[in-house]
């Protein structure tokens, strides 16, 4: 029989209702696995003690409401360390907020609590969600459960590793340039970045406010959908949330037209990643979907535009962390020294690098050459995607150019930034995007000879067309599991 912690949300919800297990049993299985493997993986920064009143309440609800209880009732979830849970530390994996205790629940956390979900711990990440490997965490990197000499991706690497290693049933992460989808790809799970505005960011520690979205990391497409349905919706605490149907109605055809920007895949992508991608496209074509070549010329400049806009927003958002009201507080002779000491001691290297970069692109004399130009490129990119979506339902490419890399392999910041080359476009356009496992490819491992590493396929859909993503992802999942 499958171990309790290895179940999906769908399987666990069924088992709970069929009395095959209890909420307590499910919690204990996940907590035991988390305690057993975390010393090796460092997926969790903190594993919470059991909240027996929440466990009892969830069990009672399943017993009394049965099938009508929310599917997430009694399900242990992992939460990225930049999402606030009242009374718990939320450090964003930074020394700056090491002792910061959340004074309120993020809207997504409140919604999950209302659904009866349980929280097993807060997960490791790159500091303030800046990075693609978790190597920028102030509390040590997370390891990839498929090969511990490799990174799990990032910045939501702790959430991804926790789900992939069955240390939680599913998890929440945040995605500013690929931080849910890239680690999902590197650990062989499903990761969704919803439409900009679909999910409230009240209680998410801000990174790039025109780009950030909270999204689920899950073992199956169905699970990702359950989590998405539970957390989405308009919220008076986040004025960027959008009502249903804002972008109009769209049809969900049975056979989907999948656009592939072949012109972007010519170089820079590993040949076996392209091979796995082609195999998956053929399987989708056999299942009745149509593959169409699309042109998205501005995509070649998307990453450069992203690395102008994102640091600009980072330097602005992180200005609030000055050691006065909360967080790391060093004291000097003057108020200015208080600020400088607190920020210098509190922020890690990559965070400081991006603050400097943001300060540069926003400074007088450069704002026209960089920021305004990037903003215009963003508008053109968005228009290109909207035009492409007149002839296709979804656009596909590999989530990353390569499978998970080894620790220290991308010590040059620019090499690390190139990890995001495919994923950033969806954050720039605000469109929803998903990564789903598409295959396994072999790589040499320092730990155990040759290992098979997971790689993901990435789909983008028009604004608010998450149902298209779920439909095409289910087709991929079916082909991948066959």
């Amino acid at each position, binding site marked *: 029989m499958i171990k309790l912690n290895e179940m999906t949300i769908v399987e666990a919800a069924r088992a709970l209702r069929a009395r095959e297990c209890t909420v307590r049993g499910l919690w204990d299985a996940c907590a035991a696995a988390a305690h057993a493997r975390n010393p090796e993986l460092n997926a969790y920064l903190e594993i919470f003690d059991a909240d027996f009143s929440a466990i009892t309440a969830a069990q009672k609800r399943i017993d009394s409401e049965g099938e009508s209880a929310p599917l997430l009732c009694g399900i242990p979830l992992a939460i990225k360390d930049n999402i606030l849970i009242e009374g718990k530390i939320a450090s964003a994996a930074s020394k700056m907020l090491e002792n910061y205790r959340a*004074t309120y629940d993020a809207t997504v956390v409140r919604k999950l609590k209302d659904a009866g979900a349980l929280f097993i711990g807060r997960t490791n990440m790159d500091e303030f969600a800046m990075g693609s490997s978790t190597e920028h965490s102030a509390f040590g990197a997370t390891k990839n459960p498929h090969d511990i000499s490799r990174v799990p991706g990032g910045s939501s690497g702790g959430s991804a590793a926790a789900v992939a290693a069955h240390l939680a049933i599913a998890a929440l992460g945040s995605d500013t340039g690929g931080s849910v989808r890239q680690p999902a790809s590197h650990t062989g799970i499903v990761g969704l970045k919803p439409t900009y505005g679909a999910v409230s960011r009240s209680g998410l520690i801000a990174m790039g406010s025109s780009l950030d979205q909270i999204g689920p990391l899950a073992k199956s497409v169905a699970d990702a959908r359950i989590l998405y349905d539970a957390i989405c919706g308009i919220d008076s605490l986040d004025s960027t949330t959008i009502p249903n149907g804002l*972008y109009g109605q769209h049809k969900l055809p049975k056979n989907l037209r999948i656009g592939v920007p072949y012109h972007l895949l010519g170089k820079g992508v590993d040949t076996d990643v392209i091979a796995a991608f082609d195999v998956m496209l053929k399987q989708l074509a056999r299942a009745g979907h149509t593959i169409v070549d699309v042109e998205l010329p501005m995509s070649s400049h998307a990453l450069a535009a992203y690395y102008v806009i994102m640091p600009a927003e980072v330097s602005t958002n992180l200005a609030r962390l000055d050691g006065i009201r909360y967080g790391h507080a060093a004291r000097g002779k003057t*108020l200015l020294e208080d600020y400088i000491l607190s920020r210098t001691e509190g*922020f890690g290297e990559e965070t*400081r690098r991006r603050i*400097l*970069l943001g300060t*540069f692109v926003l400074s007088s004399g450069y704002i026209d050459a960089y920021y305004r130009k990037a903003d*215009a*490129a963003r508008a053109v990119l968005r228009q290109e995607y909207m035009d492409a979506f007149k002839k296709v339902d979804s656009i596909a490419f590999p989530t990353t150019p390569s499978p998970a890399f080894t620790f220290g392999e991308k010590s040059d910041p620019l090499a690390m930034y190139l990890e995001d080359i495919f994923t950033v476009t969806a954050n720039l356009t605000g469109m929803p995007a998903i990564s789903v496992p598409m295959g396994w490819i072999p790589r040499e491992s320092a730990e155990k000879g040759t290992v098979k590493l997971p790689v993901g396929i990435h789909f983008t859909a028009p604004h608010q067309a998450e149902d298209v993503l779920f439909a095409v992802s289910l087709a991929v999942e079916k082909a991948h599991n066959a």
Partner: protein
Amino acid sequence: MTTIDEVKKLAALARIRVEDAELEKFTSEFDAILAYIETISMVEMPQGNALRRGLTKAKKPPLRNVMRADDEPHAARAYTKKIAEQFPSFAKATEGKPASEAGMYLEVKQIISHD
């Protein structure tokens, strides 16, 4: 080319300090990153009317009020104690005792000098 002085100036603007030992590394990495993002400043972008046409071609969502109602979002002082507990000065002010009025004030340095 970025110079060490430029990086120092940016750091001062951003209220962080880059230690001397790190300055050279930061400066050369900065150059590599700027060389990459600089490509954006060379992209031919639709200008003026063409850009505006491109941007308005798509149907814009109708205007809507994104502001919350102008009323009390929560009872007065509902969060004061929780927020005060996060003040760096809180522990010192209360010295481990339960939150008193004293701990509820945020302590900052005097910024007006009489020199």
